[in-house]
């Protein structure tokens, strides 16, 4: 930490509402799962609050959610059938549990109402992973083995972020998938959400001296 920071070079905040760049979406995702604290008007900050983890499920809503999840044969609004299957395969690799949480269907529905730029970037990312599989194995992504998929994902996830378009596609898809997964009931429960929204106490620091030294 320099003692004389240069604000002009420092990070900029992006409002949660601004979904026009993948950066802002990542920031939004952080805000989405931020924890206790900044209960003020602070979207976009790392600890900004998001309603996503402020909710509980009644027995009724749980049942509804399970019914929704049980609906088979989703008809995509944005993607074609091949893209949807590709997304499903990629989502499961990026964040295991995504298939059961119906991440692909949710994302199709969500991105169908997003901006043309975000739609293009998303569709482009799916195409890029298909092309990576074709270049290496002459097959589409869903036709190569899990081990082959993993090798390509590893390569994309560690490529230089400045020069590799695959790294950008990886980060873009991962952000979408993680956001979808961790806002699903399964994902939220994995993060400790238990349905209780009535808390008697708010725990805080009880150390004498308040960590002065």
């Amino acid at each position, binding site marked *: 930490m320099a003692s004389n920071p240069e604000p002009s070079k420092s990070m900029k905040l992006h409002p949660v*509402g601004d979904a026009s760049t993948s950066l802002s979406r990542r920031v939004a995702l952080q805000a989405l799962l931020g924890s206790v604290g900044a209960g003020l008007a602070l979207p976009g900050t790392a600890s900004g609050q998001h309603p996503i983890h402020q909710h509980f499920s009644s027995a009724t809503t749980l049942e509804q959610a399970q019914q929704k999840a049980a609906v088979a044969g989703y008809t995509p609004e944005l993607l074609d059938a091949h893209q949807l299957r590709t997304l499903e395969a990629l989502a499961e690799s990026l964040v295991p549990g995504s298939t059961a949480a119906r991440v692909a269907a949710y994302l199709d529905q969500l991105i169908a109402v997003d901006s043309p730029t975000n739609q293009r970037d998303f569709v482009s990312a799916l195409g890029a992973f298909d092309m990576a599989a074709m270049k290496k194995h002459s097959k589409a992504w869903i036709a190569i083995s899990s081990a082959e998929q993993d090798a390509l994902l590893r390569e994309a996830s560690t490529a230089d972020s400045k020069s590799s378009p695959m790294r950008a596609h990886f980060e873009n898809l991962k952000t979408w998938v993680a956001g979808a997964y961790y806002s699903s009931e399964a994902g939220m429960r994995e993060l400790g959400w238990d349905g209780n929204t009535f808390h008697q106490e708010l725990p805080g620091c009880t150390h004498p001296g308040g960590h002065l030294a």
Partner: protein
Amino acid sequence: MQTNSFDVIVVGSGASGGWAAKRLSEAGIKVALLEAGRPQTGAEFSEHVPPYDLKYRDQASEWMRRTRPRQRDCYACREWNYKWFVNDHEEPYTTPDNKPFSWQGRTRMVGGRTNIWGRQSYRFSDQDLHGKSFDGFGEDWPISYKDIEPYYDLVEEYVGISGQAEGVPELPDGRFHPAMAMSCAEMQLRTRVKSKLGWTVTIGRAANITKAINGRAPCHYCGPCEQGCATRSYFNAAFTTVADALQSGNTTLITDAMVYRILTDPSTRRATGVIYIDRNTRDVREVRARAVLLCAQALESARILFNSAEGGLANSSGVLGHYLMDHTWVAGGASGEFPDAPAAKPSLGAPRRPNGLYTIRMKNTINGPREKKYLRGFGFQGGGSTNFRMNAPGYGAAFKKSVLDPLTSVNLVGFGEVLPRFDNFVALDPKVVDKFGIPVLRITMSWGENEKAMIPDMAVTAAQMMEAAGAKNIQPFSVLDRIPGYGIHEMGTARMGRDPKSSVLNEFLQTHDIANLYVMDASSFVSGGCQNPTLTLMALAVRGCDHLMQEMKRGSI
């Protein structure tokens, strides 16, 4: 046209209008309370509804922006509650091309913005009220802290503000409900900043009660107050002041009433009533009364005055609409990590504090050193948190494991005073009307040199505090190009003053020109401080109502 008569018309049922209706009607005065939006019954409250029960889980910003492109700028406008906000296309406003302004938080519900407000509640001190005496800029308020103090006490007692007394003159203490707890990292920041820099970091003073009052239960820490509260634990005018006013039997609430203009009698120079348009039927109706109180929010009240007479009603001074202020919001600050501070594992099942930290203004204070580059000062809001590591690298099972690795950090984000300048103003747009046909506002506002000089110092100062606290990975930031409006603290459009030539209102919020016309929202503010304005505007509204009742008793109104 249907005509009804009352003693007093109150336009707007939010923070100030709710108080006006309560104060007057409990004293036996017949009040017509006009609200532009629909009733708030609580049936739409959704603070306990899980995101996956929403079609888009509040992630489809573009979709929401189809109808609420500006309202969505605000963190509080969500898929759960967006229907409480105006459709920006139906009720627009305009700006010059090179001076964008984000007019947010435009609710159309009984309770107004108190449905969705941030609840931070701070008193202004004499330093804030008498800035001109201190540094020569602008005007002093025509009142002192001691004039407002009893009204702060009265309002706080009823609203219920949790917080901690600090004995710091820049931020007068109130009568607080027990303070919400601070985390270990936050305490570390508080104790070390006090010890090394002498500045005060305290728990936010929030209109969230922590003990039961008036049939309202203490906060249950579910989190998203902006979506409503089943236990009425945060202050919402709809379930407090407005409910009391209705309970008195002396208030008639008229919803869906878009007040278009104030009626006046030129021979007596008095207001005689208002005309409104029913949002649903488009019926035009007239209400008459002995006095009219505008509590419609600083921009909407100015709009009504401009629509009521050529050049603006009660505008002999020519300053109506001018000296518009906001706060520079999250304009500069810093984050820092506290890896060594004890913290519970993050969990979505944990209680959520609907409140953060507050750092009391430390620059250009009466007893402190003066800054060379700018006047006035700023406070920090923000707070600490122990988060999941959502930006963990990699993918698959390893990514999911890394997500669970806790990260404890604290954010400090600056809210800065914006100087009142004549060239920040609103006027009617001669070409644009809303869907009711009512001329809309054209807002002209930009940051001045003072704001631009202050914002970078927020980053430097916050980083300094983080260093003092022993934080790691300190990340200062500043945002010079955020457009005005994000503070959602519009103030100053009908400022008060002793001189009718340079102000619209007197110290009791009564217009200089028309004795039975008052403006009781933040329009009256002469300067903006760096504190959230709602507590102060509520106190001033009650003070103004007491003045009005004296005048009515005297027979002058």
